[in-house]
């Protein structure tokens, strides 16, 4: 019990607090010691906050929409009626996932033009893939006997889905969401190239004006964001497995 509590405390409070503290400390440090007027102009609280907000917004919107699309499509493909195209879709998704993120962003850039919306759309499409694949794989990997037993007990198909299939596939689906979010935070740093802003702006500006401190601020904040989100989703995943 004590051990359980300690592990929970460490996972939910200590590690996130350390990461947040690091991010805040770093921001305060670079704003107060920019080491030059050029960097000082880039590194103010409002501007850093704006980049961060753009970044988080991009990731959040695209991921939530991807969960909203990926999970239902994944469930649909496991229904008997669509099962025949499930394999085909799985293969397409696998090929889609091997396509590099920069190529995806560049492709949509040429069709949809610059801007925030293009980036969100590309990120959305890219993060559907792991979520869809894991939903499909998670439900398909349930032993047929379990589902048959549920049917035998007189459960309706909807009940089987809600009470048996989804709870059993939950950890796998969550793992897909986690993969999608981490890839998404990384890809969002590239969104600066298509004029969508985000923390990538700091990195790219820093490189082009040759100020390591600007690069470092953008890189560190995006890295901390990725590690923090990965950690929190890992905690949720673990809790679901445990219960």
């Amino acid at each position: 019990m004590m051990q359980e509590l300690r592990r929970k405390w460490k996972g939910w409070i200590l590690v996130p607090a350390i990461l947040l503290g690091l991010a805040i400390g770093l921001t305060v440090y670079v704003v107060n010691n920019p080491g030059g007027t050029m960097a000082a102009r880039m590194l103010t609280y409002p501007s850093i906050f704006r980049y961060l907000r753009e970044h988080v917004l991009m990731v959040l919107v695209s991921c939530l929409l991807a969960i909203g699309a990926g999970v239902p499509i994944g469930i649909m493909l496991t229904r008997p009626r669509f099962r025949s195209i499930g394999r085909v879709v799985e293969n397409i998704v696998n090929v889609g996932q091997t396509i590099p993120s920069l190529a995806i962003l560049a492709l949509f850039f040429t069709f949809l033009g610059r801007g925030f919306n293009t980036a969100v759309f590309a990120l959305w499409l890219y993060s559907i893939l792991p979520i869809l694949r894991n939903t499909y794989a998670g439900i398909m990997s349930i032993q047929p006997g379990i589902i048959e037993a549920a049917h035998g007990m007189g459960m309706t198909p909807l009940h089987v889905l809600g009470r048996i299939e989804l709870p059993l596939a939950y950890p796998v689906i969550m793992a897909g969401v986690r993969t999608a979010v981490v890839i998404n935070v990384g890809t969002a740093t590239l969104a600066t190239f298509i004029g969508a802003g985000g923390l990538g702006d700091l990195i790219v500006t820093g490189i082009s004006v040759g100020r390591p401190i600007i690069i470092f601020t953008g890189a560190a904040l995006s890295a901390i964001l990725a590690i923090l989100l990965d950690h929190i989703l890992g905690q949720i995943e673990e809790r679901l497995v445990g219960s």
Partner: protein
Amino acid sequence: MNVFEFMITRRESLWHLTVEHFYLVFLAVLIAVIIGIIVGIIITYSYTASVFALTICQVLMTVPSMAMLGFLLPFFGIGFRTGMIALVLYSLLPIVRNTYTGIREIPNSILESAYGMGMTPWHVLLRIQVPLALPVIMAGIRTATVMVIGIAAIASYIGAGGLGELIFHGISRTQPYRILAGAILISIMAVMADLILGWVEERLMVR
């Protein structure tokens, strides 16, 4: 000008960039395979070391590639070297992790019978553990290669060369056909690498 015209008229420079990209990826994965397999084997002997190494690799993987390039840039400067170091770091995790799990998954009875036959630990490692773990290690190399093809495209931004240059030049000069050519070639390269290495993996599995 459309993409296909561009690809045909510029086929020589495109070929050059493709070879450069391939070279970057090949060298990075080669270095990562050598380091990764050795590290993966060493950490199977100690639980603490394995947790330590795998956690570090896991965190490194989570760091966005653009951020990693940003971290390395002030130390190693613009150019090939920085890109190379970033690529090697990224390809380490899948290889280390898969070497570790591949060796760990071998049933104890096999190892015991090998020792019972009088094999030395070195023999067991080279004749039993590594060959049996080979398909899993190969899967790690496959993941690493596909990932590194994508990251190498980003590394073009800091002057490491390769097909990413087409995308970045295309964006700054607003030449959509150049961007498309780059995106298409990189995607084809990644999908091809995945297919070929997947085939190799399957061959190893059958044996």
